[in-house]
Structure formats: C-alpha cells, structure tokens
C-alpha cells in the first residue's frame, strides 16, 4: 500500500477558509461558496493553466440543496474548463481526507498528474426537512383540485406536521448503533477513565495554541473570506484565547445530560469551512515549475466498533507505522483531529496500553506515548472547529505547513470517522528529506 509501488505524489500548495462558528442561524456561505472562495486564490497564484488540472475531487457530507455533486458545481464556478471532470466524495468526517487519498492514488497509479482535492462543509446550512407526515400532507394538498377539497385538506393540518427533521442531528448520530457522536465520546471517556478535568484542560490548551498560532502568523494557509454584506473573515472565529479550566468547568454535559463529562466546550465546534490541496506528479511539478511543500508517503483507512469511533486514528495509524518501520520518535509532528478532547486523549492512552495494542491493534506491545508538545501544536477541532467534510483536508494541509515551518522530516495526520472508521496520512517534507540525505552522503 505504500508508495513504493507507484509514482511519487507531491502536495504543491493549499489554502483554506477561516472556519466560521455556526451561531444558531444560517451562515453567510453555502458549501459551494466556501469551496470557491478558498480555491480562487489558490488557482490564481499558481502558474499552471486551469486545463492542466486532470480532475477536481471534493469531500462533503451535506452540500447545499442546489449543489448536487458539489465538486462539479465548484469546479465549474471556478472557471475550470468543462472538460475537466469533478466529483464529490463522502466518507463522513473524513470526506476531505478521502478526496486527498483518492487524488493521491490516481496520481500514484499514473492516471492523473495534477488534481485539485479538498473538503468543505457548511454545517450552519445543514438542511432542516419536513417530516413524512408533512410530506404526505403536501402531496394530498397538491392533488386537491377544488377549493372545498383544499379547505378540507388544510383542516387536517396538526401540530405534528410541523415537527422538523434536523439533518445535522441525524448526521451526527450513528443509527446502526443508535448513538450520537457525543455519546461515543462518553464511552471512550468511560473506557479509559478520562476525567472531565483532563478534557477541559486539553480543550483550553487547544484554544491557547490556536490563539498563539494566529498571533504568530502560523496560519498563512487561510484566505480571507468576504460576504456580500461588507464583512470579512480572516481567522477561525471560534477561538477563545481567554479560555480557562474554570470557565470550561461551568459548562453542562451536552450529551449524557447531568452525569456525563463531554460538554460543548471540550468538543469540536460546529463550523463552516473549506480546505484545498493541489496534488501533483513529478512530471507536473517539473512541467509547471511547482513549489513542493510535502509528499504523501502513505495512507490508511481502518474500521472499528462504531460505538467507539473516536479511536479510529490509532487503528489507521498503526498499519502505517508498521509498514514504514516507524517508531513514535520518527514522527516529528502529529495532527489528530479533535472531534472530542476525550477521543484524542483516548487515542494517546490506547497506544500506551499493551492490552489495547495487543487486543485491538494486533501489536506485540504498546506503541508508546505521543508527546503532547508534538500533537496538534496549533490547536484542533475543539478550537478551530470541525466542518466535517473539510477537516481531513485541513489537517493534511496544516501538517504540510508545520513540517515546512519547523523544517521537520515527517508528520502524521489522522482523524476519527463517525460510523467507526479511522483515516491516516503520512506526510514527508521533501526539503528536509533532501537535507538529511545530503548530510548522510
């Protein structure tokens, strides 16, 4: 599965929107709008002509009602030639990582040279639907011809007709096991004995790290968004730099009401955002003189019990570690998407337990401890937010940026997926790799 068997795949550039916290009303941008806004500057600043793009792949869970195959909609809106195919992928929370993986594999296999891949989600615009009773009533109303018929149909309307179906709630619920995502996080907290204080402290750190990253200009992948009302958005607006353990402690459990530990404060924020990467073969890099920021060394998907979907990252990262003969020290930085603070803590904990590693991961012994100072160093879903379809592409992009900034060798980007899966991508910094090789020589 590693790239030994195919062509090398490079990431040459990337961009994202700031992630905008959903504030209980319909956000200013549809999924298509976000994806277009993030990609426009990216395509503009690079030197290749738009018809050099072989395909566009976009991950998205819930595109806008007018955006069937939102990948294609966005591609056309960007002015990419009609002859360039575009598609949309959906692997729940990993849709944005799936698009990168699909692009990676198509280039590695020689089917493509240049692909625009990314992810997007406008969670604030998740549909609110009529329930079945109402749909049937509407059907009846449409069929009634005379005014009398119409009136009698209208008289049949009851309160139950107006109960809406909120797609976002259903989207964040695993119907096979009947658990909300927050409940799966509670299960992990319970399994590993993770305390509310640990979660809150982790959440606070996430906010502080993001605030510092913003301040230090470490997030130059963000492109400013402009709405049509004269506002602009230049940073992830869910960040709370003044977050403290005390302030977080005041929040009430959001899922297991009363007795639970998972709160809105230590969970990923519901946000809108889009992220893109440009992936290229060596040929394309040479032909268009593209600046390489990283290469993809390996990718992995894994499945596990949906009730503990948050453990997905360790299940996906483990085979990559084995296949590439890596130990934890070999990885310079880690991005594990913060769906819930407890779920990241659970992943770190699991790799330290012989029992979990032997039972669930078929390892001989524990993998070891991922150092927190190397994990999600610029914040994560808790502070940045988790627009489900976009996050996979965002963490890959940011890992590239971290590797570049620190001149580090390699990094791992991974996330958990509702429904009981995990995805992981191993990234390498070409510049640092070369310098290592040169030193060795």
């Amino acid at each position, binding site marked *: 599965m590693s790239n030994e068997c195919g062509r090398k795949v490079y990431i040459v550039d990337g961009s994202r929107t700031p992630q905008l916290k959903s504030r209980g009303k319909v956000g200013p941008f549809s999924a298509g709008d976000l994806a*277009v806004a993030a990609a*426009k*500057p990216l395509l*503009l*600043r690079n*030197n290749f002509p738009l018809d050099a793009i072989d395909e566009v792949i976009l991950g998205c869970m819930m595109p806008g009602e007018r955006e069937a195959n939102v990948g294609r909609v966005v591609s056309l*809106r*960007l*002015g990419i030639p009609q002859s360039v195919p575009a598609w949309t992928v959906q692997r729940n929370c990993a849709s944005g990582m799936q698009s990168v993986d699909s692009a990676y594999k198509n280039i590695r296999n020689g089917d493509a040279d240049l692909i625009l891949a990314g992810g997007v989600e406008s969670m604030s615009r998740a549909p609110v639907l009529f329930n079945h009773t109402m749909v049937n009533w509407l059907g009846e109303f449409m069929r009634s011809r005379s005014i009398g018929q119409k009136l009698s149909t209208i008289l049949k309307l009851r309160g139950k007709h107006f109960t809406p179906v909120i797609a976002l709630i259903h989207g964040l619920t695993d119907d096979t096991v009947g658990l909300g995502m927050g409940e799966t996080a509670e299960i992990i907290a319970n399994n590993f004995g993770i305390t509310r204080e640990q979660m809150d402290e982790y959440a606070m750190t996430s906010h502080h790290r993001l605030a510092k990253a913003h301040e230090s200009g470490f997030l130059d992948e963000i492109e*400013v968004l*402009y*709405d*049509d*009302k*004269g*506002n*602009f958005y*230049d940073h992830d607006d869910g960040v709370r730099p003044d977050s403290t353990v005390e302030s977080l402690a005041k929040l009430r459990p959001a899922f297991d009401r009363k007795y639970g530990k998972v709160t809105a404060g230590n969970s990923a924020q519901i946000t809108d955002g889009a992220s893109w990467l440009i992936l290229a073969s060596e040929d394309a890099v040479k032909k268009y003189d593209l600046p390489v920021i990283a290469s993809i060394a390996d990718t992995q998907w894994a499945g596990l019990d949906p009730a503990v979907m948050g453990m997905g990252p360790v299940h996906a990262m483990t085979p990559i570690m084995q296949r590439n003969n890596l130990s934890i020290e070999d990885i310079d930085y880690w991005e594990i998407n913060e769906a819930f603070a407890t779920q990241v803590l659970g992943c770190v904990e699991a790799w330290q337990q012989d029992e979990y590693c032997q039972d669930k991961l078929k390892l001989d012994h524990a993998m070891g401890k991922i150092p927190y100072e190397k994990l999600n160093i610029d914040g994560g879903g808790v502070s940045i937010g988790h627009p489900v379809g976009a996050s996979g592409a965002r963490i890959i992009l940011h890992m590239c940026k971290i590797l570049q900034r620190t001149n580090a060798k390699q990094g791992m980007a991974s996330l958990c997926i509702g429904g009981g899966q995990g995805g992981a991508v191993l990234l390498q910094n070409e510049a640092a790799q070369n310098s290592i090789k040169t030193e060795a020589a």
Partner: protein
Amino acid sequence: MSEENRSEDSNWHVEKDNNNIAWVHFDKPESAANLLAQSAIKELNEILIDFESDLPRAIIILSDKKDSFIFGADIKEFTALDNKEQALAFMLKGHELMNRLEAMKCPTVAMVHGLCFGGGTELSLACDYIVASDDKKTKIGLPEIKLGIHPGYGGTARSIERCGPMAAMNIMLTGRALNARAAKKIRLIEEMVPLRQLKSAAESFALTAPQRKKLPFLTRVMNYSLVRPIIASQMRKQVASKARKEHYPAPYSLISLWQKYAGNKKLMLEKEAIAVADLATTDTARNLVRVFFLQEQLKSQGKKVKFDAEYVHVIGGGIMGGDIASWCAIQGYSVTVQDQDPERLAQTIKRAQYSFKKKFKRDRRAIRDANDRLMADHRGSGIHRADIVIEAIFEDVDVKRSLYESIEPKMKPDAILATNTSSIKLEDLSSCLKNPGRLVGLHFFNPVALMPLVEIIRGNETDENVVQQALAFGKNIGKLPLAVKSSPGFLVNRILMPYILEAVTMVDEGIPPEVIDKAALQYGMPMGPIELADTVGLDICKSVANILSAALDMPLPANLKTLSDKKLGKKTGEGFYKYKSGKPIKNKSASYSNQQEVQDRLVLRLLNEATACLREGIVDEADLIDAGVIFGTGFAPFRGGPLEYIRSTGVDELSQTLEGLKNKLGDRFKKDEGWSSL
C-alpha cells in the same frame, strides 16, 4: 421545400414548405445585421404583391443573421433627407409595406430571435403574431425617441392596439428595449419560447391562426377619447421632468398624436407619418442622429486591433477601483481587486453587490457568476495572470511609482499597465518602468456604471499598440473609448472645469446657485454646474482645478480656495446646497436679472476651451471632441456637441458675445486662436 427568388444581392428570399407556408428570410447582403433600408422595404413589398396573387397558407418572417432579427431602419438614409416632403415620401414607403403586410389574407408571423428594434419591431407589429425566443440576446424595442423622432412605420398605432396605450406609450417614450418575458407580459408579443422551439411555435401559429386575445377592459378604457386628455397631460408632466419640449419635441409630438387620433387607426397612421417627417428634419433629430454616429465612431476606435484580455487586475479598492472591478466582472472578465486593507475590500465587495443586482436584477445565477469572477485579492495574487493591470490608487506620484516598480517584474511581459489617474502626467509615472511603453491612461468617470466614456490617455512614451489595445479593451467592456493626448485635465475635465469654475465664480459674485443651475438646464445640460460640483465633491473639484489652474492659467474662485471638511458637497450633506436624503434643497424663488448672461458665461467658457482642445490636437479628430464632451459630461446631446453648436449658431455671433464678456469680465473670456480655423 422549394426556394425562389434567391439572388446574391437581394435582402430577402422565400422558401415554401410542404404546408405552403412561405418562410420569408431576411438576410441583408454583406452585413452583420439586417437593416430595414428603403431597398429592403421595396423588395419585401414586391414579394408581398406576388403573394397577393398567389396566396400562401401563411407567411413567416425570419432573419438569417446570427442572434439578430432586424436592427431597425438604416439611419444613414435619414441623414440624406433634406426637407419634410422628402421625409414624408420616405415614411410612406414604409407605411405602404406595413399596411400591405397587415392586410394579407393569410396568417402572418414574425419569428424573432435576437435584436429587434425600430422598423424591425414595426414590421413585426404589422404581422398577426409575434413569436420570440426567450434568449438573453432577444431584445425588442422602439427606440426611435432616442433619435429625436418616434415610430414612423405604423409602430405607434399598432403597438397601442396590441398593448394598450399605457404600456405602448411607455416603451415608445422611454425607448427602452424589452426582453421577451417583459414583451410577453405587456402583450407586445404572443408567445415566448426557448430558441429550440421557436420554429415549431411560429409554424403552429401559422397553421392554427388562433384568435388574438382581446385587451382587458381597463386597458381599453385608457384609449377612450374622454380619458385620453387626462392621461396625456399626466404623460406630458412625466416627460417634462426628463426633457424640455423646446429641446426634445418628439415625445410631446407622440403624446399629441395619440391624444388626438387614437380613436381612428387609419387616421393615426397617416398623421404618424406626417409627424415623423416633421420631426426627422428638426435640428434635434439631426443632432441626435449625429450623436448616434459619434457613438459608433467611438466604438470603432476600439476595433482596430484585437485584444482578448481574460484577466483584469485592479489595484485600489476605493470607489473608483472597486467600481471598475465590478464593472469588468459584469462584463465577463475574471477580475482581482487588490487593496492592503481587507476592510476596504469588504466594502468593495459589498458595493459590487449593488452593481450586480442593478445589472442582473433577480437573476441569482448571473449574480453568483459575477461574484465568482470577482475576487478580493489583498495579496496581489492576480498580478501575474492579468492581461491588464488597472491602477486606481490615490493621486500620489511617489506612491504610484513605487507601486509600479514593485509590480512590473510580476506582470506578464505583454500585459498592459493602465492608470486611472486624472491629474498626474503619464510621463512622470512611466519613467520608473523598465518598459515605459506599456503604461497607458484609462480614465473612467464616476459613477463607472453610468458614465459611458473612458478616456484612453496616450502618453509620450506609450506604445501605439498599447493605446490601440486599451481602446479595444474600453470597447470590449462596453464603454466608449476615446484616445486623448496626455495633457492636463485630458479632454473632459479640461472642458468641464472652466465651465464649473465660472459657475463658482458667479456664486462668489452673489448670483444664486439656483439661477446658475437653471441657466445650464435651459441650455440642455443634464445637471447644473453647481449641483455637479457638489455631486463630484468640492475637494475633488478643487484638486482637479488646482492642476488645471497651474497649467492653463485658470485662477481658483474664492469659494473653492478654502473648504470646510463638513461642506464638501453631497457626500457630506452640504456644499453649495444643503442636501436632504441625497437631494439638494433649492430656493425656487431665487432670481437674477440677467439670466442670459449667466448662460453665456457658462457656455462660452466651455466652448472656448473646446476650441482650444481642437487647436491643440487633444484628440485625433474634431468630431471626437463633440463625442467626448457629450458622452463624458452629458453635454446637451440635441445640440450635437460644442463644436457642432458653434458651427450651427455661427462663429461670428458667438465671437461677438465672447468679446463682450471679455470686455466686461476679463481675459478668461479671451477668444482662443482656434476659433479662426472653425
């Protein structure tokens, strides 16, 4: 299908299909558009005479031109009409054809796709049915009023018959073009279908000849002889707010025609021809036709070279830069607008929404596409892709120069650099460039969306090819480009400024602004000079005036020398006038004893400066001065432009007035040497 009458130089050819429907194709030889010239009228008339003896089952009139039906009459033919008798004979030829078409004993259908104006619409109206495509390119209208006449081939009576007087008079009085949907709504056409169904729809009307629907009762009431005078007086009032009778007689003539004769179609048709023959020979109509051709001349300036720009980069997100950017996005270009300040860019994007909504109304997709083409670009990523970079930052030589130095290396080698400066010499800017020839002036006027003219400034260093490309760009973005020599004030501001300064001087002297503005309106200006100064902004007037006063020896009036920040004109709520919800509060009782002198002072300074521009060769041809002044300032179009006005009024008479003013008021009225060559 059989084909008859097909010869190389004929306008029409007839095809008869198996149903014996005659498809009458209009295809003017060697022309992109169909014009209903006298030759075309004569030929079609002959075809119809043949049909009278050998009646087809139906007649369908269609165009063979791509995306255009019939552009209207051939306006060039109007210019050859010397007197009313000639004009009447000319109009009656059209009437004969239209009457014959209307009287045909078989169903007649006009199958309209693309532009359908004037005579084309009148021809369609003479058919039993009009079927049009719903394509964006389909526009139907009776724009004769813009040429100082009104419909003269039966369009008045027939449009009223179809749509009722309110809707018909509205389109004739405004001259606006309707899309198919709007035309269907007012019953101007019977059917609107997608282009792919146009032939089927025309055929269906031809074969089934359905009964035409009667107009609703209320619409018919408007045409009753007792009601007409009331409505007519309302219409006159509305027209009066836009155009004075002594300047623009055509709308008044149209209203009278309807009021007097609407009860009798035959009579109305006869009187229509006479009225138009009268109007066509007035100075107003001649001058408006002249303006039409001046417009064509400006457009043709942009046709000499091909310049297929795709990406436009605008630097400066202020009002000017932002409006240029959104205008270009509306015109289909990919546009980046750069500014360091995201706050300002946010306002730029917000303003663009107004432009988009104004242009595309409620067409959600068109607005989305325009937004997708426009990008706020605070990093300047667009420079390296741009075919043309338009700089519209504030007027500071050093800042502009350092900007140019930093962007030139990033620009494509053959990209044009254009500056929107209105006051800095191009040579002072271009000297910092490695390739000074690529810098050209692209002087837009505010508000960009409404002002048709763009001055293309030719610096001493500017490559001629770059000038031509800039002209082409101006035309391609739907503006009227005018090549102007690089000299202070270029053409428009230079001619406008003495006129405004004279107005302000008169305010200094104690003449009420209302009187001054009224004098200008009486002359035919769209807005008085004092209100114009307030609208432009007194600070901007002052800075332009400062530049010109140094170069052209025009002293600044006292009122402009010291400005208060709170009294900069409309934008601050007060200038020479006070403003209430965007409108100046004027003292209607203001008066002055010598109104004529006020007008002379204004107009003659303008005329004198126009003459100076001609002498200095600011533009390439004399006519272009008139074109620039009309489209750049709104100078009374019915007067044909300042130089045309001088010619028609008489050089001697105006010279005398000028001499008198010089003796009374001083050397600013000194006759320019250019007068002698007029």
